[in-house]
């Protein structure tokens, strides 16, 4: 604390820190509570559909849920087998 703030009794504006922390934790907890329930099923279905056309391993399809601003984004990553 500088001598100026000692004299004038400057207070710390910490509310913005609180808000930022809450934005992050609330977003994460909302996803954690509501989101991933259906993800394993979605992954299974995707494996079934894609297996009709391409031979893949179940673990080659990765499904994730992400939060970007106000949107929730489902990210699907499909690794096709190497073509020999």
């Amino acid at each position, binding site marked *: 604390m500088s001598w100026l703030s000692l004299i004038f009794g400057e207070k*710390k504006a*910490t*509310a913005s820190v609180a*808000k930022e922390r*809450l934005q992050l*934790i609330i977003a994460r*907890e*909302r996803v954690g*509570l509501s989101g991933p329930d259906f993800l394993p099923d979605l992954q299974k279905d995707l494996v079934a559909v894609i297996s009709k056309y391409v031979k893949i391993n179940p673990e080659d399809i990765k499904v994730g849920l992400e939060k970007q601003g106000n949107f929730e984004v489902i990210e699907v990553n499909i690794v096709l087998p190497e073509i020999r």
Partner: protein
Amino acid sequence: MATIITITSGKGGVGKTTTSASIASGLAMRGFKTAVIDFDVGLRNLDLIMGCERRVVYDFVNVIQGDANLHQALIKDKHADNLFVLPASQTRDKDALTEEGVEKVLKDLEHQGFDYIVCDSPAGIEHGAVMALTFADEAIVVTNPEVSSVRDSDRILGIIQSKSRRAVEGREPVKEHLLVTRYSPKRAHEGEMLTYTDIQELLRIPLLGVIPESEAVLHASNQGIPAIHQKDTPVADAYLDAIGRFLGETHPLRFVDHEKPGLLKRLFGGK
């Protein structure tokens, strides 16, 4: 039809019981036949806040278990006509609140012509709190401008959206209201405290009111008179405004802006 209003928060000590007492009193003062039920089995306190602790004979659990009827257990409030208190049991454990039992008591109150049934939830997210919100038509989420309270409010909103009867049966969802309590306009203005708009932005539910931090609340609980009766105090006026908004009226927010005290006031203090 009776409307069931649950006063909840997740976190303890944010002003649920104070709010339950004042909201129930406010509705009764508007002429609605109102009952307020303490769901905090084992730690009852609504009776003290309402000033009827010495008139408790039978309680909520007695009624659920058939040891007493509603008529015997309801305590008529001294400060407002049309208002009745159903105290929690002090001796039983919270498992005594069965879903069927609670539902029957609420139905019976409805048959007795009650317009509003206010459920004062215990803190936490366990059985008692879930029972208090299961049958809600509307929920007032009491939140302090403080990190743990905001986070817990968000948790309890998630539980309302998943465990209430309305959610389970896929009916129109519980109508949620945000009530910010213990608000200090000065500290919010100086960036020391989350503002009510911050909280609303985080929780994303409509704002019912902002109750300022005030000495009047302690005076009220000391005497066992709901804070809404502390005439001409900001707390009472803020609760009266919130009641008006709840009933669909428009009232601008009061007591949320910080006015810099003038020099005289700063020198000589005063209230």
